């Protein structure tokens, strides 16, 4: 029956057509994101594609218990919808990592299910053994899924603050990692070639999956919290390729197309982030970044002079200004200050001040993080500019208002060759006439743990407080 079913797959053109249509819907889903206006239509396409894929699968397979399946979908759907509705926008990075671990786990479960019941998947050879090529695809799929799962769990914990963002460096970790990776590859090969190829027969498969879970943890714990977004993207990419591998097994166009899309998306986002941080992908994966400088970096500098200001000072300065450029960063997300910020901007506009927002590609903790938060606070997206579009305007700006950003404004990236962030493109905040720098303490450095020269400049005024409280104060003072 296994063989027969694959043949059915290949022969019925309508089923193949439906999966193709689903794949095309997914393409349109991503295509819509080229523009905020078309994006919602794109998302609908994505939903339609998923519906087509699910319905097609259900109607073309004999189903033993449709009720159980519907219950399963209902349970999952409810959890998903409730989470999606309740989650704070500032918690997006964690949410993506968490969702991610679920995809990984689902992939593992599907791989294991295929291993136990290969007949249903049409991958049973004539001799009662699972086809060798399918064994490879299955093993790879399950292993990638397991790595995605355990890696994403760690990423979630670090991003959520449930676990210290500092890298945990095991001795000889590179050796251990390479050994485990090698082990997985060898096991996959052995599994593919082993005589014991019947359903659920070979213990190799189980060892393989267990090792993959382990390597997921081992690979990710040495990576610092600031590099987590790169890791999440990378895992995203992997899960895409895993889906594609399964698509090869099932001859399913929707899965292949999705796999290629998700795989590319993750890879490209990782690339964009690495480029914006001026780091190599390898150095991110090797881990250990942000390990040392953090704690000691802050304590030393307090003996240098710096100017402090109050909310009233800030309000006074900005009211006088002609143009203000707001530079938000991770601190704004932590303090949930985006709504207050938007109020402040409105007040400034009433005073005739021109207000713009400048977003660094890696401000915050995930690509586009600041844009989402500003959008949540109803900031029109045409007031929000990318680094390359606005960087030349700082020289003409009266005030750069830095709220919870740090690394992405650090002039050391341009001048100090010894700095770990040297070469990273930064916002030219220092060229503005006056810099208002909002953070909680002189001590805390940014995620990269690097000292920021900007604090001690003549034209910088430090506003030390929680971002939300400070901005609320400014709004009051502007009245």
């Amino acid at each position, binding site marked *: 029956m296994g063989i027969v079913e694959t043949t059915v797959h290949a022969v019925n053109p309508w089923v193949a057509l439906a999966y193709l249509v689903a794949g095309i819907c997914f393409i349109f889903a991503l295509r819509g994101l080229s523009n905020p206006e078309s994006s919602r239509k794109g*998302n609908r396409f994505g*939903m339609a594609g998923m519906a087509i894929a699910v319905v097609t699968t259900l109607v073309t397979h004999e189903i033993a218990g449709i009720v159980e399946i519907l219950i399963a979908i209902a349970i999952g759907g409810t959890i*998903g919808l409730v989470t999606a*509705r309740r989650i704070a926008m500032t918690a997006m990075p964690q949410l993506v990592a968490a969702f991610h671990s679920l995809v990984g786990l689902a992939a593992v479960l599907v791989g294991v*299910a295929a291993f136990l019941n290969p007949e*249903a998947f049409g991958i049973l050879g004539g001799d009662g053994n699972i086809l060798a090529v399918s064994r490879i695809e299955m093993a790879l799929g399950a292993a990638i899924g397991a790595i995605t799962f355990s890696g994403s769990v760690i990423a979630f914990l670090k991003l959520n603050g449930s676990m210290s963002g500092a890298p945990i460096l095991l001795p000889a970790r590179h050796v251990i990692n390479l050994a485990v990776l090698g082990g997985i590859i060898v096991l996959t090969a052995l599994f593919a070639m082993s005589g014991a190829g019947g359903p659920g027969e070979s213990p190799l498969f189980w060892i393989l999956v267990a090792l993959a879970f382990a390597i997921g943890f081992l690979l990710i714990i040495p990576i610092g919290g600031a590099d987590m977004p790169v890791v999440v993207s990378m895992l995203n990419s992997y899960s895409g390729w895993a889906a594609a591998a399964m*698509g090869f097994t099932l001859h399913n166009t929707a899965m292949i197309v999705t796999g290629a899309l998700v795989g590319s998306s993750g890879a490209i986002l990782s690339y964009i982030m690495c480029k914006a941080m001026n780091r190599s992908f390898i150095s991110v994966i090797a881990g250990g970044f942000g390990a040392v400088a953090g704690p000691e970096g802050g304590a030393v500098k307090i003996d240098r002079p710096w100017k402090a200001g109050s909310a009233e000072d800030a309000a006074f300065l900005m009211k006088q200004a002609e143009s203000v450029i707001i530079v938000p960063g991770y601190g704004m997300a932590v303090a949930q200050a985006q709504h207050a910020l938007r109020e402040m901007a409105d007040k400034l506009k009433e005073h005739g001040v021109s207000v713009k927002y400048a977003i660094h*590609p890696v401000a915050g903790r995930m690509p586009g993080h600041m*844009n989402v938060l500003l959008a949540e606070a109803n900031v029109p997206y045409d007031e929000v500019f*990318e680094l390359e579009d606005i960087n030349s305007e700082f020289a003409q700006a009266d005030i750069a208002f830095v709220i919870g950003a740090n690394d992405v404004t650090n002039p050391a990236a341009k001048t100090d060759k010894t700095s770990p962030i040297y070469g990273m493109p930064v916002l030219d905040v220092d060229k503005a006439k006056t810099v208002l720098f909002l953070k909680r303490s002189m001590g805390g450095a940014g995620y990269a743990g690097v000292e920021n020269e900007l604090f001690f400049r003549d034209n910088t005024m430090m506003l030390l407080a929680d971002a939300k409280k400070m901005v609320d104060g400014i709004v009051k003072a502007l009245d």
Partner: protein
Amino acid sequence: MDFISILSIFVLACFVGYYVVWSVTPALHTPLMAVTNAISSVIIVGALIASAAAAVPGAKWLGLAAVVLASINIFGGFAVTERMLAMYKKKERPVKPAAPEAGK
């Protein structure tokens, strides 16, 4: 479908993925991550196949568990994307609540 057809589809899909992702505006990179999360749950197809077949109960229950997980992702992913995208708005030019310069 023979292997080469599938390979051709895969290769071309990679090209499409490359172009389509590069054309996403950076402002929407967070929704991009959320929506790729949702669509990568197309793996639910495999989960459904596993849970549809009654022959091996173990596989069936694993399949159902995978269906639950994938469904969380699908519904959660699309819903959270929808929620985010609904927030992106252009400057409302015709009805300005308070003209600049005109305030207090």
